[in-house]
């Protein structure tokens, strides 16, 4: 399995799990943790794409709210202490990624002449 096939497999598994989570959350979970959603159904369809992508976050928040451990003041407090180091990291990482990309760039094989190996259709190796 190469990288592309691994990505396909990952996306398939992620989406399959996301579909199950979306089904359970939108039919059972949302009524338990959000009283404003009770009795409202059509809008739930709009949440499906988001849940497919972010299902681990949905499970985590569902657990927090279900067990009454939510501290909403803390949740909205911005993580300011991380800003300085994130800014430094970005300032270093973005140019580094660009330079690495440029240094690894392939050269177009402009001089390569196509070669006919046989006039017969060859055997697949």
């Amino acid at each position, binding site marked *: 399995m*190469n*990288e*592309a*096939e691994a990505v*396909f497999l990952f996306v398939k598994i992620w989406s399959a799990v996301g579909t199950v989570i979306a089904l359970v959350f939108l039919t059972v979970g949302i009524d338990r943790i959000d009283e404003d959603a009770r009795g409202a159904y059509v809008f739930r369809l709009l949440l499906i794409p988001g849940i497919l992508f972010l299902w681990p976050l949905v499970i985590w928040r569902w657990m927090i709210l279900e067990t009454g451990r939510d501290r909403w003041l803390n949740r909205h407090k911005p993580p300011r202490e991380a800003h300085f180091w994130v800014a430094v990291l970005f300032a270093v990482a973005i140019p580094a990624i660009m330079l690495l*990309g*440029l240094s690894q*760039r*392939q*050269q*177009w*094989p*402009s*001089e*390569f*002449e*196509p*070669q*006919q*190996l*046989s*006039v*017969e*259709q*060859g055997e*697949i*190796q």
Partner: protein
Amino acid sequence: MKENAPFFVGYLKIPAKLHGFLIKVSVIIFASFVAGAFLAGASQDDPGKAGFRFDFGRQKLKGVLEANPYPLLHVISGSDRIDAGQTIMLTAQGKSGIMTDTNALNGRVVEATGVIVRRGDLDMLQVLPGQRGIKPTNEASILPASEPLGRWRLQGEICDGKCLAGAMQPGRGLAHKACANLCLLGDIPPVFVSSKPVEGEEFLMVGGADGGMLPRELYHFVGQFVEIEANVERRGDLLVVLVEAENVKVIK
């Protein structure tokens, strides 16, 4: 901070002592962005002249449909832009290939209606949805036989044919790999760009060695410069290279 040191507040008048500093910072930031944009642009290859030809108007072609490895139309009645005898690849709107069941129409005469996407001598017809795009007729036909051209060693790049033909600018290269793979997942015909022409053709449609669609293993190589060993066939005036993942390697 020193007492009485000037302090910048966006919505208040700028302190006089900060004028010089702010002008220098503004000039440096502006120049950096201009230089960065120029360098990023200059490091890219010229995408060349290509794109949708809405200026040609909607094309209505009649021809024999060949379903595999990707839908082709062997034109028997062309337009002022597409000649009879030409073989043209078919695609649908967005990142989708033809939705119609083309296997059921394989070898049948159909009317295809859509817009041309063109890069040099690479043409693709983006057809309208449903029967407005591909409409079967009752006319009898014979599917042109493919002509085997032997086994070849080629260097170049596997792209998605639609972006390469000009649906995106640029429509190839490593930066375009994810987009190309999404197009290929949507069954848009892939195209191999050869380093030099093969039997006079720079662009070859790509299929799997079994005559079907591009194998999933080959998505790994899309957008990179690769060397392939594969059988080549002529279908009408279009070359098709039938590739197996084991015979593809990235050029160092």
